[in-house]
């Protein structure tokens, strides 16, 4: 039993490619589109956002994905979480246990903090009962006692992100947790607290994917790192090594640029 669990990876990404058709002259209006179509001129270019990406993530592993902006990290996340279908290849993962942790999902600034807990919670897939049970804990963790009946638009950005973090991590153990640049939220003290909460979740056996362009975050938190550049898999291995290679490459690129 135990062994079988080990054998099956939590996430299996197999030869995933993602191509977008991008119109050369973007027809953003209906008029342009019709004119273009009549002239046979809606030419498109293929943008290769991801090219043949394959990797496994084992249960309990903490994988950091690094790469420069526009390298395809967030496209990959969307494919893994099931929001996008890849052009080619497939992803095997237990979709129901995946939680994509982005802060303030569906927050509405015109609503009160309490109303937002329910709204955001509903969008994240929590049931009404669950939110009701966890409500006090969420408020407590976000350190927002006494502010819950106020509109979120009157909150500081730190308060908003604390609330967002508290809601997003209220779930006990999501089987697979995907963190998209969320470990740099709030002031120093809250950052420590949130890192602690993430550690807790990791220890309870969750598989974690961390996306970041901060090498430090990856080095500190991950057991393995994957480097993606221009949609291609550049390196996969021990976080220290991958991060070092990534930093080196960045430095070299800067020099060449000069």
């Amino acid at each position, binding site marked *: 039993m135990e062994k079988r669990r080990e054998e099956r990876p939590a996430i299996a990404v197999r030869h995933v490619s993602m191509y977008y058709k991008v119109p050369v002259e973007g027809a953003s*209006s209906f008029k342009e*589109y019709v004119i273009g179509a009549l002239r046979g001129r809606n030419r498109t270019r293929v943008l290769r956002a991801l090219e043949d990406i394959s990797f496994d993530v084992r249960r309990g592993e903490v994988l950091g994905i690094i790469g420069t902006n526009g390298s395809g990290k967030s496209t990959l996340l969307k494919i893994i979480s099931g*929001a996008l279908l890849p052009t080619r290849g497939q992803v095997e993962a237990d979709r129901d246990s995946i939680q994509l942790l982005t802060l303030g999902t*569906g927050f509405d600034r015109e*609503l009160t903090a309490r109303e937002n807990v329910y709204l955001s919670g509903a969008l994240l897939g929590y049931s009404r009962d669950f939110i009701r049970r966890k409500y006090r804990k969420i408020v407590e963790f976000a350190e927002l006692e006494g502010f819950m009946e106020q509109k979120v638009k009157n909150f500081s950005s730190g308060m908003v992100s604390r609330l967002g973090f508290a809601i997003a991590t209220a779930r006990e153990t999501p089987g697979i947790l995907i963190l998209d640049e969320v470990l740099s939220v709030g002031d120093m003290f809250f950052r420590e607290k949130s890192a602690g909460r993430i550690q807790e979740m990791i220890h309870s056996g969750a598989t974690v994917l961390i996306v970041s362009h901060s090498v430090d975050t990856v080095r500190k938190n991950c057991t393995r790192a994957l480097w993606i550049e221009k949609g291609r898999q550049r390196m996969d291995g021990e976080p220290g090594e991958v991060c070092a290679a990534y930093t080196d490459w960045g430095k070299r690129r800067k020099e060449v640029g000069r």
Partner: protein
Amino acid sequence: MRGHLYFVTGQLVAREMKRKYSRSRLGILWSVLNPLLSMAVLSMIFSTMFRKSIEDYPVYYLTGLLIWSFFTAATNTAMTALADNQALLLQVRLPRSVFPLSRVVTAFVNFLYSLAAYAVMLLVFRIPLRESALVFPVIVLFLFLFSLGMGYVLSVLYVFFGDIRHLYGVALTLWMYLSALFYPLELLPRTMQAVIWQNPVYNFIAGARDCLLYGRMPPAMVLLRIALWGAGMYGAGRVVFWKSQNRVIQKL
């Protein structure tokens, strides 16, 4: 899963309602007052003009107005539902149809409130409800489906062509004049009347007037058109929406 969808839709609708009235004192009361005020204005302008041909002009107008307002509010707001919730669509694994759906439901809740105004007017004008009024909920059901189907199609179109919003605005103006909201249909030449009977929205309005205002069953032909348009548009909307889902996400 199904239960959860109700919860999410409920939350989204509550959000829309709170937003809508977050800056006003009378709040939800506006849903009742708005059609009444509009009715008062139109009645002042037109009731002398159409006095001979239409009995109880204010209620005649109000019946059409409520249906028309629901239809335009539902489709107009559903149109931008996908684009407005762009960020959410990529984060959340909910069926994407909840966004246009919750906009249509919001318009529907408003419609239900405005029915209170309608009930008051029926009392004021001493118009009794007959058994035929039982048909009204059925008409409303198909009206809901019709609007939802349109909303699905528009929300997808809007993602690809933002201009559709302005086009639709113009189309709605024309459509309103073709829906005989504030004039009697008999005023028009026969050929024009035939055209207007092809307008789905007019069929909903005529059906509602029959069963509430005149206390009679709408003609079978009207009921048939109502059912066909309602079910047909809903079906078409679903097909368009589900077929284009992946492309919508890529575009966003």
